[in-house]
Structure formats: structure tokens, C-alpha cells
């Protein structure tokens, strides 16, 4: 069967590209290896009555332009912000991060009187970086070696924005993009627990420690999202993250698109350097002159493309592109709301993201374990109970806990990711939480434990890297994923990339998907329709 375009992988980026292509009038097919759509933005009911956000679990980065252009709220998407969060330390203290400015100031002062002002300085520095980078997200990164007028004008655009920052701020920006989150925070904040609370955003999903250069940028990547104009705010997708991709799929189908689940890609069919279609594992073949891969760059070109079709330099680039899975995930059904020893009764901050940390050194030690091929003995966890806000994911009075765990290696130095090790990994995490919440373990009704290897197997993310490749400066902008191929095109004519391996990278953002759609449509002499969002 012949289509105008085929998208491989029904993750949020694949479905974003598909949505825009279908709306531009292309006869578009999406193929998906799993029996369900969603990729890493899925909601599944593994325990009757409970819905998990199995992989990604909070929403902020998803570009509002995409939500509006694809009309996702009409198809059921509702993003609900959450208000605060906290880090508990082992001495019985906590730091409550509050979205209320006054409460936050008072809490900072309680921990260290100087930190209230220091935090304002820190927040301004990060906001300035956000303001600088945000306009770049929904644009194709220019190729600095190209003489194409569009590349030159885009480079001038970035150059001018950079120049307009002024000398001091230019220097700050370069420092920021290359320095570690620990050193960045040391400039502003004194309190260990406050620094530890903030530093988490710098290491989530990345194979780097808080003292590793480049982690300040990873923090920025987590801050540049927004929930309704409140920059840096995070929210829940009502019904779990799967509601995002469900809405995308419905929007796509309403625009005439077709989705086939249940069989993955075997090979891209390439003739004379041009892609002509896809061959699936079940033997089906579908044809199109435009094929867009939502898979990461390694799976796309190493596993599903014949090497002879690709230039050696490109293959080298793909092979050296770093993934390094570093995170695991626990999804837990709870019989009731756990209590936290240090939290006062009715503490509102329990509705936000919770962490259990003393200081930066504890995160660095957790990273050291990972380097040695072990999961962290005292891991960094991003722990949320979304059912305090979202009424749809568990029966009333019952709860769902999503626990993101940093660090867990893709390959264990000692043994395999088998059931015994998965269970031991889960125990490490649950034991750590239990030190702060004595009734937590007893409330567990069901749990799903996912190592990086599980994430790779189920979702297809190489090495379980949640960003489809590390977000370090050497792999960003025109270097993402491979120099010369950062504009969603590949060496094979008609074969494009739309996943998070391409600019601007990972997170449930949709920007790579929308940017890829723009490039595909440009090549077909059409224009992407961002509607009133543009």
C-alpha cells in the first residue's frame, strides 16, 4: 500500500510529526511495535483500578504551540499544574519548595537567611538563560558550515540574540552551558538541602554527576517548559502521560491519519539512495517516498538501515553518539496515602515532587555507584503521588506513586537485570523512602519496576536513555545527533528523523516532531500549519 508519508514509532514526537503531516493533506501512516501508542508517554492499567504513567510522569515541556495547533484539548488533553515540592534530609529537616513567592522566601530564610536573596539571583540567572534558549526550541538549528541563505539568516538570528546579551551575559551564558550544576548553585545558594533540592533537575536522565560539566544545561532543559506561561512550572497530564499521546493519536486520526500497532519495523526499504517504504517484522510492506523515524538515531540507522546505504562518516557519528542509560522507574499502587515523619499534618507540599537527600555529595556518591556498574545505594528519587490531584488514576483514598530513580546502569557490573536484581533494586529505593515514610512499604498493593534495560526493551529507547541521547553540549543544536545532519534529514533521501535524538532533544516536548514536520513539508513544497499559535 502506498502512502505520502510513513512515521515509524507512535511516541509523542512521531505522533506530532504525523499530526502536522496529516493536517497538511498528506496520506500518512504511523506504525508502532507495541500494541498501544504512546512510546514513553503512556498510561497503562497494570493493576485493576490504578493507572500508571509508566515512563515519563510529569508534563511541562510540551510546547503550547503544538497543543493548540493539533487541538489536543479537544481530544481530551488536560494539563494540571502542581504547586510545590520538598526535599527531606536524614536529620528530620525538610526544604519545601513552594510556587508561592512569599512562602518560598520564608522557607529559604528558615534554612539560611542569605538564601532568600541568593535564590532570587539564581532564579533570575536561570530565567535569563530560558529566555535566550526558548525561541530556539521551535526552530531548526542552523548548520554553521552551510552557505544556504536560511542557515546564514538563522545563524545571524542566534548571533544577534547572543550579541545583544552584552559582554558579561555572553560570558555567563557560555559558562552556564558548560559548567556543573553544583558549581553553578554554589555561586548563589548556601544551604545544602536547598542546593540538593534544585540540583536534581541537573542530573535527571543523564549519565553525569552534579559536579560534571554540562549538568547546568540539563537543569535548564527541565526549566524551559511552562504550564500556561508560568515558566518552569510542571504539571500532570490528567489520566497520566498517555493522555497526551492518546489525544495526539485521535487528533491525527481525525485529520485522516492511519495507525497500525502491533508490529515493529524490520528495515527501511532503500533504493538508489532513496527511501521507498518500510518492511515490518510481520512481513507487511508499506510504501512512501517520505519516511520519518521517531526512533532514536542508533536504532534508526544501525539496527534498521543497511550500512551500505550510509556514508562512513555518518555511521561513525551515529556510533559515537552517547546514550548511557542512567535511570530506572518504579510505579507503585498504594492502598492509602503514606505519611511522612517530618511533614506536618496536611502538608500541601506532599502534592508535589518529593526527594530524600542531604546534600550534593550524596548525589555524587549515587553517581559513583553508577560509574561502577551498580545502581545507587542511596539513589536520587523524584517521587510524586499524582492521585492527590488527579482523581482519575486510582480509586478515592487509594494512591499511585511514580518514582523516578537516578542512577541505575544499563549494564550491571555484577549480573543481569533479572527478576532478582530488579527486586533488589526496588528494595533499595523503597527502603530509602521508608526511612522517611514508615508506612510506605506496607501500603504497596502492586509495583512495576523498570530498569534501563526494561525501558529499552519495552519503549525502544537505546540503553534506556530517556532523552534519546545525552543532553550534553557536544550533542546539542547543530551537533544533534550528528554534525551536518541536525536538520532532521538523513543521508538517505526521503528518510527523516523526528525523535528526541534531534534538536532540541528529549522530554515530552514535541518540538523535534514539529520541527521535523516543518522540514518534511518544506521539501514537499508545503508549509507547516501552526494556526493561531504561530
Amino acid at each position, binding site marked *: 500500500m502506498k502512502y505520502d508519508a510513513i512515521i515509524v514509532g507512535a511516541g509523542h514526537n512521531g505522533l506530532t510529526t504525523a499530526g502536522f503531516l496529516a493536517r497538511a493533506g498528506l496520506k500518512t501512516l504511523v506504525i508502532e511495535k507495541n500494541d498501544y501508542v504512546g512510546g514513553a508517554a503512556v498510561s497503562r492499567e497494570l493493576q485493576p483500578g490504578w493507572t500508571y504513567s509508566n515512563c515519563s510522569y510529569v508534563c511541562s515541556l510540551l510546547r503550547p504551540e503544538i497543543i493548540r495547533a493539533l487541538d489536543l484539548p479537544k481530544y481530551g488533553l488536560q494539563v494540571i499544574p502542581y504547586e510545590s515540592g520538598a526535599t527531606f534530609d536524614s536529620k528530620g529537616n525538610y526544604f519545601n519548595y513552594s510556587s508561592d513567592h512569599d512562602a518560598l522566601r520564608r522557607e529559604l530564610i528558615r534554612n539560611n537567611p542569605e538564601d532568600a536573596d541568593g535564590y532570587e539571583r539564581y532564579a533570575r540567572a536561570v530565567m535569563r538563560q530560558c529566555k535566550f534558549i526558548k525561541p530556539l526550541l521551535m526552530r531548526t538549528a542552523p548548520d554553521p558550515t552551510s552557505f544556504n541563505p536560511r542557515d546564514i539568516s538563522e545563524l545571524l538570528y542566534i548571533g544577534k540574540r547572543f550579541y545583544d546579551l552584552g559582554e558579561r551575559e555572553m560570558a555567563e551564558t557560555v559558562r552556564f552551558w558548560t559548567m556543573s550544576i553544583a558549581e553553578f548553585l554554589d555561586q548563589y545558594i548556601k544551604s545544602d538541602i536547598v542546593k540538593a533540592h534544585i540540583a536534581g533537575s541537573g542530573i535527571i536522565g543523564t549519565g553525569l554527576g552534579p559536579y560534571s560539566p554540562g549538568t547546568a544545561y540539563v537543569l535548564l532543559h527541565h526549566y524551559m517548559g511552562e504550564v500556561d506561561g508560568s515558566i518552569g512550572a510542571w504539571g500532570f497530564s490528567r489520566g497520566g502521560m498517555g493522555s497526551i499521546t492518546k489525544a495526539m493519536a485521535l487528533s491525527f486520526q481525525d485529520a485522516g491519519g492511519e495507525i497500525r500497532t502491533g508490529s515493529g519495523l524490520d528495515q527501511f526499504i532503500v533504493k538508489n539512495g532513496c527511501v521507498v517504504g518500510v518492511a515490518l517484522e510481520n512481513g507487511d510492506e508499506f510504501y512512501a517516498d517520505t519516511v520519518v523515524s521517531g526512533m532514536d538515531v542508533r536504532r534508526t540507522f544501525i539496527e534498521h538501515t543497511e550500512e551500505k546505504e550510509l556514508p562512513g562518516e555518518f555511521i561513525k557519528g551515529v556510533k559515537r553518539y552517547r546514550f548511557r542509560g542512567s535511570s530506572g522507574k518504579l510505579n507503585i499502587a498504594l492502598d492509602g496515602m503514606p505519611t511522612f515523619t517530618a511533614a506536618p499534618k496536611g502538608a500541601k507540599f506532599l502534592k508535589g515532587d518529593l526527594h530524600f537527600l542531604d546534600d550534593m555529595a550524596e548525589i555524587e556518591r549515587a553517581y559513583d555507584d553508577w560509574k561502577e556498574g551498580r545502581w545507587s545505594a542511596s539513589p536520587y528519587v523524584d517521587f510524586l503521588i499524582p492521585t*492527590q490531584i488527579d*482523581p482519575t488514576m486510582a480509586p478515592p483514598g487509594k494512591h499511585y506513586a511514580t518514582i523516578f530513580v537516578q542512577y541505575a546502569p544499563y549494564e550491571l557490573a555484577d549480573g543481569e537485570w533479572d527478576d532478582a536484581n530488579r527486586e533488589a533494586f526496588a528494595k533499595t529505593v523503597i527502603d530509602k523512602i521508608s526511612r522517611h515514610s514508615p508506612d510506605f512499604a506496607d501500603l504497596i498493593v502492586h509495583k512495576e519496576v523498570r530498569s534501563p534495560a526494561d525501558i529499552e526493551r519495552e519503549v525502544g529507547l537505546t540503553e534506556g536513555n530517556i532523552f534519546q541521547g545525552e543532553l550534553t553540549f557536544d550533542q546539542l543544536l547543530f551537533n544533534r545527533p550528528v554534525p551536518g545532519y541536525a536538520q532532521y534529514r538523513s543521508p538517505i533521501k526521503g528518510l527523516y528523523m523526528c525523535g528526541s535524538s534531534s534538536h532540541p532533544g528529549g522530554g515530552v516536548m514535541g518540538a523535534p516532531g514539529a520541527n521535523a514536520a516543518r522540514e518534511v513539508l518544506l521539501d514537499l513544497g508545503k508549509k507547516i500549519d501552526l494556526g493561531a499559535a504561530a
Partner: protein
Amino acid sequence: MNKALTPRPQMPMGALPAPFHKRIAAENFQHSWMNWNGYASPGVLDTAEFEYFAIRNQATLFDISPMCKFRINGPDAEAVMNRMMTRDVRKQKPGRVSYVIWCDEDGNVVDDGTLFRRSDDEFLLFCQEPQLLWIKDIAWGFDVEVSEVTHDLAGFAFQGPTTAATLRDLKIKEIETMRPFDIRDIKIAGKKVMISRTGFTGDLGYELVMAPKDALAVWDAVYAAGQLRGVRIIGYEALEMARIEAGFLLPRVDFISSQTNLRVNRARNPYEIGLDWLVTFDKPHYNGKRVLQRLAGVAPKRKLFAIEISRDKAAHHALVYHRKTREVGFVTSALWSATTKRNIAYAWLEAPFGQEVKDDLWVEIYLQREIEWQRRMERVMIVERPFFVHPRRTVTPPLNF
């Protein structure tokens, strides 16, 4: 001493506490109050955005006691209401609510409100503006009693997707059969409550009305039952966001009552406001009928439109232009709609703009960014009201979330 000469208390100034004041004040961390018809009504309790999201995701309480409320009862109650309203009140069965407008003799809108038919010969009318004299004037010569009950009834709006589940937890079995605009008489905490499936949010929700002496007991029971359902007290700012999304108009904001306008050309008829669906001619004479019959089918000189605006900055108080040069109208209510992710507004446009001429319309938005002002021209698209209405608003029996 002559008893008649003892000092009498002076009338208090400003806003008085409404029936739920104690409960709301206890949660009003911003100490933000507005004056609504002489009562202290919360503006925002902690954060307007989070209160707004509770309307769309959980369950919310909002005190509606300050609304103007009137009782019309007697053998001619139906005739009086039918003489006043543009809708056919005879079709409204006891136990039903309808959204109504009423006009003056020139066909201009006096006010809008909700009309509760309690029985064959008793109605309750809830609205924004004082209407005692207006109703009495219409009732002249009819066998009917008209009384203001604003202070005799307390009430709160209970709105949001988990409201039905909360009422189920309170064992209110009546909600299972209640369709939108149905009324039931129930008991909560042993107190008599009139509950209706109505509201101002475009979402699943109810309004509960009770005697002021029972107000706190009912509120407490609902609030306690809502704890597992994410219940939250909200202020006016959050409700205003939901109100605009839901396509409801606000007198004094989107149009002005023909009984209060100073400038004679400010009064507006239902065709201009876009409420022609509330006007019927298949009924006996009512205020404005003759003029409205003449206006029906004639393109209004100006019209209130629902508009969508490009990009994400709300067009508060913006002027509307054709071809970016000719001024053709202005915005009354504007909002970045967090649920629909659209930039929405209501705007008055002079004919033929918005009617025959829909293209090349622009709003001029002024943005203040750290002291400096920026001017933006953004595209305007004419769209349908409401901007948001959730299917769960009407599903019967109601869903749990």
C-alpha cells in the same frame, strides 16, 4: 426620656460578611476580598490558577449568596414570568431551571439570570442586578406575590468533575437521575437544600441553596466529603476564567443593563449580544416583543462575538481593527484559556465586521514588560461560543470524575 429619641445605629459601610464568611476567611491566605452586592466575596484564596484548575479537575466551592434573589408566587406566577421573559416560561416544568433574559419595551436587555420553577405557582429568580421594582411593575394587576429573598437564602456553587462523586459519597441518590437544569429538594447534614444541576463553568456542577442558619452545616458536610475528591474553595478570579471559557456573559462587563446605562446608546438587544436563541415569539405579549419581532432577521448594527486571537497574550481591553488601520470594535473579556490552550475573548464589532467581513481583523495588544510597553497586532478569528464545554457536563447519571 423619650424612647423614640434614642440613637439608631448607622448603616454599616462597605462589604458585610456573607453566610460562609468564616469558612472562606479561614482559607483566604491572600486576604483578598471583593465587594459583590455589598458582601465580601473572595477574589483569590491562594493562587487563582490553581483554584481555576480545581474547577476543571476536582471540585470547588464558591459562595453565591450575594446574588440578587426574588420569589414570585401565586396563581399568576407563570403568567408574570412569561410576561417578563423572552423565553416561553409555560414550557418550563416545575423542578426545572432555565437561563433567561428580559428586555425593556425597546427590546434592550435588562438583565440575565436563572429562573427556578419550584412548583406550578412558585418561581425563584437569581440574577446580578436588583430587580424588585422591575418585577413588581410587571406583576401589577396580576394575582401574585413578589418578594426579594436575597438575604433569606444562602447558596454556593459546587462545580467540577468530582462533584457528583462527592455527592454520591454523601448518599445523595437524587443526583443519579438529575439532568442538567433539574432541581431536587434534598437533605445534607439533616438540613433542607435545594440542589440544581446548574453552574457558571461549562463543566459538571451543582448549585446548592439553603436557609442562612443552615449554611455552615451544609458547607461543612460537603467540604468534608470532598476531601478525598480534591475539593477546594475558590475565589472570583478563578471563576471568571471558567466563566469566559464556558461562554457566559457578565452584565456590566460584556454588556450593560438597559436600566442602568447613562448614555442612551449603550443599551443592547438580544440579537446584538448573541442571545437570540433565548427569544421566542410563539407566546403572548412580553416586554420588548414587538420591537424584537421587527429586529429579528435584520443584521444588527453591532454584535458581540466570541473571538480567538493569535499567539498567547490575552487581549484585555484591546481595540479591534480592520486591516490594522480602521477601528471597528473592542474587547470586553479576555483570557489565555489554560484548558483549551487558546487565546480567547469577547469583542463588540460594528457591522459589517464579524458578520459579513470576517477577514483581516486584528486586535491591538499592549504588553508591559518590565516597565516598557510593547504594542502587538494579533490576528482575530470569529469563532462559536462556548470556547469550552466538557461532555461530562451533561452525562446522566453523572460520572465520578
